[in-house]
Structure formats: C-alpha cells, structure tokens
C-alpha cells in the first residue's frame, strides 16, 4: 500500500488545493477511491492524485533558518516613507524656483 495525496480544483481561476490523503494498492485504485472519498459531491471539477513518494519533501532543518530573517518581513513602510520625503523635497525645490 502507498499513501496518495489528493488535490482538487474547481473550474475558473482557483488553484488546486489539498483535499486529503488515502492509502491504495496502486495508482489506478488511488484514482478510483479518490473519487468517492473526496469528490462524491463534485467538490472539484479536476483532480490530481499524487503518490507521496513522488513529492519532493523537506522539513524543519531545511526551512527553520529562514524564520530568523526579519529583514524579509518588511511591509514597504520604510521605502514608502523615503519616497514620500523625496517627493516633498522635490516639490519644495520647484516652489523655490518660482
């Protein structure tokens, strides 16, 4: 038995979203079982079923150093303030020329 992850997408611009997982003996059975387990009420119009073995996975060790980089969490406020100050400086210079 292998574990499969199931992703569903509705027609339109929505992206595929994870719906859940299931165990199956082979790919065909995984697809067949996914239909009644996750799409019995037509929750999506399209489905991806992926054997978990085929997912590229990484965990905490790989990702956690990035948790300590506050400079990547800027909201643009500092840059916006500097640009505003620069604009105001420009317009007061222009005013002086008149």
């Amino acid at each position, binding site marked *: 038995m292998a574990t499969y992850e199931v992703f569903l997408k509705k027609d339109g611009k929505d992206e595929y979203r994870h719906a859940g997982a299931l165990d199956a003996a082979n790919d*065909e059975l995984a697809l067949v*079982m996914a239909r009644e*387990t996750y799409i019995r009420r037509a929750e999506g119009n399209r489905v991806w079923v992926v054997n978990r073995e085929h997912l590229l996975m990484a965990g905490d060790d790989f990702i956690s150093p990035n948790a300590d980089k506050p400079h990547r969490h800027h909201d643009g406020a500092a840059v916006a303030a500097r640009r505003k100050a620069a604009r105001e400086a420009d317009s007061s210079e222009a005013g002086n020329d008149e």
Partner: protein
Amino acid sequence: MSNEAALREFLLAFADDEHLIGQQHTEWIGVAPFLEEDLAFSSIGQDELGHAVLLYELVCEIDGVEPTDAAIDALAYGRSAEEYRSSAFTEFGTTDWAEALVRHWIYDMVEDLRWQLVAESSHAGLASVAVRAQREEAYHRRHAEALIGSLVTTPGRVELERALDTVLALLPSLLAPVAGIEEMVAAGVTAAPLSSKSSDIASQINAAFDGEYEVQVGSGARQERSSAFGPLMARMREVLDLDPDAVW
C-alpha cells in the same frame, strides 16, 4: 402477450434487479474492508437505486399512475413476492466480501451490456434513462475492474475463484429471458435479448482470470423467487414494517 404487458415484464425485471443489487451493495456501509471502499461501494449502490427509480417511473407510466414517491415505494416495497421479476443473482444475500466484489464486477459487466442494448430503444424514455445510467456505469466498471485486476495477482485470488464459482452458479438467472422478450426485440425496445451476450460475458471473465469458465443462460422467465428473496425483503422492509402508515 400484449406489447404493453411485455414491456412491463421487461422493465420490471431490469428495475427489480437494479433495486435489489443497490440494496445488497448499500448493506456494506460501515463494514466494507477499508474506508475508501466503504464509501465507493455504497455510492455505487446508491447509483443503482437511482436507476431503479427511473425504471419504476417508466412502469408507473404503463400503469397510468403518477410517479410520486409513494407510487415508486409501492412498486419497490409493496408487491407480493410473485409480482417481482428479480433474479436469484440479485436476490442472493452474502456477508462474504469476495462474493460481494465478484458479483459487483459481473453485475456491472452485464448491466453495461443491458444499457447498451436499449441505448437506441424505440422507447424514448428508456433510451434517455440509458444515457444517464451509462455515464455512471463507466465508473462502476472501472472500480470493479481496478479491484479485481489488482487482487487477481495476489494470494487473495483463491478467494476470488471460490467466489466466482458461487456467482457463476447464479448468473444464469440474470441472463434468463423475460416473458415477452421476442415482442420487445421485434418492437425495437431492446436490440437483442440479454441472453445473446453470454459468450461476450464469458470472454470478459476469462480474460481477467485467464480461465475457461462457461456462462449458461437460465429459463423460467423470472416467475419464481429464490429462497433468499424473503429474508432480503424482510431486511428492506424492517423500518417500514414498524409503522406502515407513518408519514415520511
């Protein structure tokens, strides 16, 4: 036999099989061998019950009765045993998963052929029911074939072969011609009797099992019920019988 009487026999045989097989499948709710199969198998059972309703509606039309829920229920649950036209194949009750699975596989193989035979029926109502049913049958067959195809190469094959012996002994009853079938073929209601498909069915079974099984056609025009019918009907009517006049 008048054409109308023959049509009623033909439709009832199909509807009663669909109704009873739907009941048999849905009895696996909660006890199928794994969760995903529990959902899939009982969904397939629901589909079959839906086909039965559509066919009973066509019977109501012949009887000149408005096809209300009460009228459908009266046909589904309210007749005496001799008025049913179900086959021993669908009446057979089992708590053995291998038997349930092999029966599902062969039933849907036969049902698919049955719909194909009426897909271009001169009876417009029946032809339109066939279109809808065939879309659902594609999934039923894929489900059954995926399970049989993967189990047949495992040690579980022994169980399947044992079950196949049981189910093949019942299969002639499903293929037995109904009363008035010649009239129905002549009128273009069905392209041919289901019994004409027995070698097609045998070759599908033999392809899956690499075997040399033979498929026989029964007789009796479905006028008699098997011993499994009474207990099955009692299970189906269990709640209804608590208060036959209850309003739902």
